Structures are given as C-alpha cells and as structure tokens.
C-alpha cells in the first residue's frame, strides 16, 4: 500500500513535468482574427524600472498580439500577491509584476500570471549593467512573448542600414525599434544594402571605392573587413547562402549585369544567368534552395525565381511594369518586393505568383526585408520628405519610422538573431 502511495506521487510528478513541458499556447499567431490578449504590465519601481516596463509595453504592443491595459484599472498593489479573482471581472488575461534593484547593475525580478488558470507562468530574475537597460527589457519581452505564443520574439534583433555620413555613405546598426543607432565606420562613395549571414556574425555588402565596385565581407567576431570580389563593372552583393560558405551577387563584368555565386571556401565563381539585359538583386531562400531575382528579359523589370544552380527559371510577378528588390520570408512561403504603383510601394506575393497584396500607400517605398520570424518587414520610405527606415507588420499594419530624424537612411536588413 505504501508502494501505491509512492506510485501516485511519481505519477503526479510525471504529469506535472509534462504539463509544463507541453506549454499552453495562449495566442495562436497563425490565426489572423486572433483577438489581442489584454495584459496588465506594472511599472517596476524606480526610474530605470519604469523605463524597462515602458519598453516591454512598446515591444508587446507592436506585435499586434497584446493589448496593454491602462494602469488606472490595476486593482492590486504591485507588492500584493496576485489574486485571480481581482482580475477575472476586468477581462484582463495576463498580469506582469516585478521588483527592481538599481546600483551599478540593474537586477529585476519578473513574475507573469495567467489570470484564467490563476497561476504563475514565468518567474525569473535578470541582471545587467545599467548601460544595457534596453537589452534587459527586450530580453524580458522575449520571455513574455515566448510564454504566450510558444515562439521566439524578435525584440533583441537589430537592423543594419545605409546612411549618409560626412558626404559619403556608411553602414550603421540600430535596434529593431530604432534605439541605439551606432556607426560601424565602414564607408564608401556609395554603399548598398548590407546582407546578414544566417548566424548574424557577418555582413556582406557592396561599396564603390576609387571608381570600383567591390563586394566586401565584415566579420563582427574579428571586426575585420575583407574584399571578396572585385572586377570592372557594377558588382552588387546579394545574400549569403545559409551555411555561410557562398554568396550570390550581380556583376556586369561580362557586359550586362548577371547573377553569380561565389564560393567563399575555394573562390569558385559560377555564372547563373546570361541574358543581354539586366539581372540583379539575387535573394536566397532560407533553406538555400532558391534564388529570387530581378530581370528585364521580358521588357520590364520583374521578379523571377530559379533554383540555386540557375535552373528552372520562373517568372513570379506579372502585374505592373516595375517590380524589384525581392526578399524571402524565412518560411519561404512569401516574397516581399518593391512594386511601382505610380510611386514605389511594398508588395507581397507567394512564390507561385498568387496572393499579391500591396502593403504601403504613401511616398516611395523600397528595400523590404523580413524580420527573422516573418511577422514584420523593414523598408525605406521617403513619405515624410527624407528617406528613412520604417518597420511594419507583414500585413501592412503599424507602419512607423524608426531611423533617427534628419539622417537620410535606407537599405535596411533585419538581423537573423
């Protein structure tokens, strides 16, 4: 009989392990009509605490999946224990409370409660240097986001872009929300949109220096820059392949701009297209099997897709006379690109050419780049008079400028991590 009791205990333990491993999904992001989850996020104590809470609210609000409830309706003191019955009548489904200590370092404790189940679903302490307050807040956002969606958030990702710098062009980085803009010191007379390696440790880009277009690779680990391709004519970097061992780009070394791949291991150069017209902007799908690119072989620039070896070329866009700058969704089921509708707009289409949608309306919009979770798109726009970097949801909702005011910025690329 004692054994039976023991067994019951083990079974209980077993069940509890599995119920927490098999986490409940609160927000099904695949459902387009999903209602926003009402969440109460208390201000952490202290000025840094308040700032952290505000960043978390902004992060979660931008996803379109959460609705942050006004502080006026918070029925408990932060220090009081969470009680389900206080929140259920208000229709609030999640509560975030915490503690904060501020010295040379910031230490915060975060507790997240599921009102419906009446239980704590996250309890975690975070520490960082004071200067890393934003990163700390974004790390909390990632954990909260994961607790409710089961998916990785993008709140610690960055965006690389090009901006005017002392009469030249430079490559800059900023957080995905536009904070903490920093210059990398990389310059050229002209610099084009940078491309991240899939592990986020390198950037490939093209730059015109001394009347020559070269393709360069920046290694963040070593902080070195290396020229990996140069020739007469116009050379423009495309994406690195997922394994990081090869890159695709366009070059007019043989006359007209064509698509090439270059092995970074043994410098093998392969020409994938050879028409008399223009072939540019190769974009590699995240599994490395397909390349989307722009070709004017049909008389106007249109998006085409081919296999990574150059075979099986298919035209994707047929609507409009100017479709350029393709970029793959990480899942490979959509391509964003710049479509001319009077002015240049951002459009999205399935790789088989179906499901075409226009996402922007105002100004000229170019250089779209998906976030690593495929839920957001960064792009450049001149809608307020000067080119700047914007982000939006991949539905076209919540468009906002994130690059610094007064800085002419374009060519954004969302980091993979």
């Amino acid at each position, binding site marked *: 009989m004692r054994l039976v009791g023991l067994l019951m205990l083990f079974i209980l333990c077993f069940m509890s392990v599995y119920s927490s491993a098999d986490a409940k999904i609160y927000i099904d992001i695949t459902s387009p009509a999903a209602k926003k989850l009402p969440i109460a996020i208390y201000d952490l104590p202290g000025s840094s605490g308040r700032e952290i809470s505000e960043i978390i609210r902004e992060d979660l609000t931008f996803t379109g999946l959460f609705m942050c409830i006004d502080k006026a309706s918070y029925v408990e003191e932060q220090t009081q224990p969470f009680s389900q019955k206080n929140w259920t009548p208000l229709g609030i489904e999640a509560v975030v409370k915490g503690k904060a200590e501020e010295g040379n370092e910031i230490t915060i404790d975060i507790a997240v409660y599921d009102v419906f189940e009446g239980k704590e679903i996250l309890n*975690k302490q975070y520490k*960082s240097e004071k200067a890393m307050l934003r990163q700390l807040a974004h790390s909390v956002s990632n954990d909260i986001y994961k607790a409710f969606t089961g998916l990785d958030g993008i709140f610690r990702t960055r965006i690389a872009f090009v901006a005017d710098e002392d009469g030249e062009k430079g490559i800059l980085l900023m957080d995905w929300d536009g904070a903490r803009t920093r210059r990398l010191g990389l310059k050229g007379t002209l610099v084009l949109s940078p491309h991240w390696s899939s592990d986020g440790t390198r950037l490939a880009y093209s730059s015109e220096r001394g009347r020559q277009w070269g393709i360069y690779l920046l290694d963040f680990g070593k902080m070195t820059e290396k020229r990996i391709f140069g020739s007469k004519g116009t050379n*423009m970097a495309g994406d690195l392949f997922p394994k990081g061992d090869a890159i695709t780009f366009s070059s007019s070394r043989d006359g007209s701009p064509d698509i090439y791949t270059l092995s970074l291991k043994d410098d093998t150069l392969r020409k994938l297209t050879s028409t008399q017209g223009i072939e540019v902007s190769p974009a590699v799908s995240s599994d490395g099997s397909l390349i989307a690119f722009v070709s004017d072989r049909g008389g106007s620039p249109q998006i085409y897709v081919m296999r990574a070896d150059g075979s099986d070329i298919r035209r994707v866009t047929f609507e409009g006379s100017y479709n350029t700058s393709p970029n793959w969704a990480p899942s490979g089921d959509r391509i964003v690109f710049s479509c001319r509708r009077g002015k240049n707009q951002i459009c999205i289409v399935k790789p088989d050419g179906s499901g075409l949608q226009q996402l922007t309306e105002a100004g000229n919009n170019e250089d779209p780049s998906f976030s690593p979770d495929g839920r957001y798109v960064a792009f450049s726009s001149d809608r307020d008079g000067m080119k700047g970097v914007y982000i939006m949801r991949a539905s076209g909702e919540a468009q906002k400028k994130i690059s610094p005011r007064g800085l002419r910025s374009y060519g954004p690329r969302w980091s993979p991590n």
Partner: protein
Amino acid sequence: MKSRNFAVFVVMVLVAAVAGCQQRVATKQDAQDGQQGTVHKHDKEAERVTEKSADSRIQSADTGSQYVESKDSTFSDVNFDFDKYDVKDQYKPLLQSVASWMGKNGSSKLSIEGHCDERGTNEYNLALGDRRAKAVRDYLISLGVASGKLDIISYGEEKPLCTDQNEDCWGRNRRAHFVILNKAGK
C-alpha cells in the same frame, strides 16, 4: 509478486520522469543559446543580459585609383528615355566628336558615368546606369576608340544634377556623363 510488479512500474515511471525533465532542460537551453549574446541559466537563477560587442568601429580599406579626374570635362551628357538604355540618334554626332578627341589625346582615359532618375529603386538603377554607360562605351568602341581607354562606372540615382520632381529634371538626371581621367602624378 504483485508488489514487485508495482516496483518495476515505479522505476519505469521514475526513469521516464527524469528523462522528460532532462529533455526539457536541454531543449530550452538549446533554444536560448541560439539567441544573440545572452547567457541563460536555470530559471530561478538570474539571467545575465549581455551583448557581443559589435559596436567598435573599423576602418574600411580604400582602394586608390591611379587616375585623377580632370577638371576640364568638356563633353555634354548623353540623355536617355525613362527606363531605357539605348543611345538615341541625336547623340551620335556628340559621340563622334568624343571619339575624335580621344584619338588626339593618347594619354587620357575617359570615364563614362551612368546615372538615373530617382524614380527607380536603388539596385536596379545601378544596373540601369551600368547599361547606359556601357551603351555609350560600345558606341565609342564602334567608332574606333580602344576599349582600354574607356572606363565605366554606374552611380544609379545617387548623384543627381537636380532634385525637382518633374520630367525636365528627371530627364536631365537620366544621363551618361563623361569625365576625363589623367594619369595620377601628372
């Protein structure tokens, strides 16, 4: 007998539970390691939020040119139709005079810059500028200029002559522009 079976069952459940526990920790750790620059530990210990420094600046290596731009570029521009890169007949006398000047000035090189209006997108405009410069270059070669004397460079929409939003300005920006290059040090 019965209690022995129970004991075996208990052990199996225990093993399964532990395995489940371990697996869960492992996958969690893996997912977290993939995240940029953070060191995660067990939930109840503090997560130290850090970042790989990608902020230090590095200097780009400049590729010097052995030619310098001459100040006295005398040739006028060749203009193009919207989204086109064929040389129109009206510019052929101009190119004839460029070709004969090149014949008389043996040590000079000619750089042909391809430019576009701002309405296109960046990369495609650079390709279009490349094609425009090359169309002019090919025509000059057909008139007898040695290809080694002709350089081309595309600037796309990045170096406009004017920034008004009208056809007159766009038309002026859609151009091939000549720059005479003299050997550096001369």
